[in-house]
């Protein structure tokens, strides 16, 4: 089998120095058997009454001691599976009992109630590590998924996340988001843009503008971000490459050049400009030229969010006296107000699946992350501890990053779109999270 080569671009620390390009060779270890049409591991994430799948994760095994710890590697898997809200991780026996072929004795494990088992083994060679990762279906007593990855030791977390992406794809039919990243603003005076793995690891500073930055938003190709910055003492729209090396102006008109969002095809940017004194939603191309003015009237219009097909834009307007969310066709037409429940609704973010908008609502004097269908039905409040804002969808359309002050300082949290699991992921104070697209 021909191994495919995967290049991983690592975000550059502190915006200086040469970018690192890491190579990771990945090959399919085991051909998956044809599956029967029933009984297999499957979670229908659209089922509102979905229960969690009990799963075991055994400590990874290594033939000799080395710089990596098998229990810590297993913890990466456990954390991925717990925080995605779909699994109950149940304790695995230590050590696992093996059958005569050296495979886990799945019959014994069935008594635990666990439906699936993840195992891993690894060996280190110089600065490289090779991992063999497996997913077993305990009920059907068979191997469901097996992968071997080789890469730099420093990329061990990424390799484990790659396997977890495949586990989720196997079980939910949608690849996981564990290899994606979250950009956010440091919540200090400077508000530089940082990027971290979705779980908070591998924190890198991207900008070094030493002024206020706002609203980071990924380009759909994942190679850079747009953001609003006061580099030239005015809120202008800038682009920064993901390694922090290139910082270029996109729109620097008098007044606001705020809340820029790439169209799904990457060719256009919606943003709020106040060229005619009142902030209005405009569409520009990536060179910064105005293509059209999308909204009119006397309200402040800001925070556009494209539907995944690029046909509609949701945005905030206070034209009716308080900030509310409206949806307007990009081709033109009358905006339709979709939030009616509370007096302050902002920050719409359209799910990549298209079925939901996440947004921030003011409820009982605090701010909460909510979801609503684009037609204004099915309004649900997802958070209730402290103040919670700035929702940003993961590319799977099921997970949401947001900022919460529930622990005192503002930190970046992630949750599933039902709000069942809500965990802090940033180890530093932060706000304005922007979940990356799937990174190649």
């Amino acid at each position: 089998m021909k191994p495919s080569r995967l290049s991983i671009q690592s975000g550059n620390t502190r915006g200086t120095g040469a970018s690192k390009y890491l190579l990771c060779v990945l090959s399919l270890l085991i051909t998956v058997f044809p599956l029967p049409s029933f009984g297999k591991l499957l979670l229908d994430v659209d089922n509102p009454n979905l229960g969690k799948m009990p799963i075991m994760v055994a400590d990874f095994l290594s033939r000799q001691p080395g710089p990596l710890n098998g229990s810590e590697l297993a913890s990466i898997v456990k954390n991925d599976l717990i925080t995605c809200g779909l699994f109950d991780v149940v304790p695995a026996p230590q050590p696992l009992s093996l059958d005569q072929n050296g495979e886990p004795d799945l019959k014994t494990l069935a008594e635990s109630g666990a439906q699936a088992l993840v195992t891993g083994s690894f060996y280190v060679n110089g600065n490289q590590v090779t991992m063999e990762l497996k997913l077993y279906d305990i009920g059907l007593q068979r191997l469901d998924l097996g992968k071997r990855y080789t890469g730099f030791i420093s990329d061990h977390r990424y390799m484990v996340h790659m396997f977890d992406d495949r586990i989720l794809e196997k079980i939910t039919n949608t690849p996981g988001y564990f290899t994606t990243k979250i950009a956010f603003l440091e919540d200090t005076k400077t508000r530089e843009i940082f990027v971290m793995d979705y779980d908070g690891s591998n924190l890198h500073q991207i900008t070094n503008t030493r002024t206020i930055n706002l609203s980071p938003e990924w380009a759909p190709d994942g190679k850079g971000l747009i953001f609003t910055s006061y580099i030239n003492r005015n809120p202008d729209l800038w682009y920064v490459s993901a390694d922090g090396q290139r910082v270029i102006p996109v729109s620097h008109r008098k007044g606001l050049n705020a809340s820029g969002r790439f169209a799904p095809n990457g060719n256009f940017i919606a943003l709020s400009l106040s060229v005619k004194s009142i902030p209005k939603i405009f569409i520009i191309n990536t060179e910064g030229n105005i293509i059209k003015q999308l909204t009119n009237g006397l309200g402040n219009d800001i925070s556009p969010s494209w539907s995944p097909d690029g046909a509609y834009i949701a945005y905030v307007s206070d034209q009716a006296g308080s900030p509310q969310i409206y949806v307007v066709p990009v081709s033109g037409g009358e905006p339709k107000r979709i939030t009616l429940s509370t007096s302050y609704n902002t920050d719409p973010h359209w799910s990549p699946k298209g079925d939901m908008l996440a947004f921030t609502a003011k409820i009982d004097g605090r701010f909460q992350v909510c979801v609503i269908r684009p037609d204004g039905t099915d309004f649900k409040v997802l958070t209730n501890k402290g103040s919670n804002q700035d929702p940003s969808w993961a590319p799977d359309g099921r997970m949401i990053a947001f900022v919460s002050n529930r622990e005192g300082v503002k930190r970046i949290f992630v949750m599933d779109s039902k709000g069942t699991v809500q965990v802090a992921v940033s180890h530093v104070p932060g706000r304005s999270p922007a979940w990356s697209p799937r990174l190649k």
Partner: protein
Amino acid sequence: MNNCRLIIYISALLTVFALTGCAKKIVRPNEVPSAGLGMAGPGAIAEGELQGVQTSLKTIYFDFDNYTLSPEAQAAINYDADVLKRYPNLTVVAEGHCDERGTAEYNLALGERRAGAVVERLTALGIPGARLSTVSFGSELPVDPNHNEQAWAKNRRVYLRVSK
């Protein structure tokens, strides 16, 4: 003497390290004061006089999620317009601010609108539009960092920054 030279040599080396190595360090900028991003250049009037004009100008305050001018706000703008008429060479940036509540982006729009409302009023009072511009800082630069009604009331403001 030799020791002296050695010390100079080492200091020079350290300086080089500081310039190269530290360039990568996460640098915290100086605390930006509430309206510290403006720049007062040298002008026709003396620096001290410019500062005098600056301190004599009144800050204009607003209600929550609101950019309409209250009677107090209008009185402050009337006062400021009279000051500005006495110094026709000064230009004015109306810096719009909000309190911390709400979302950063909406507050950016609100701050722009507050600044715009003040500029519109100043224009109506006879200050030429060419002397006036706006910049919104949203909720990014509070004068009072506390999280209570008193602090919020101080932070919902338009600050008129004069320069030559």
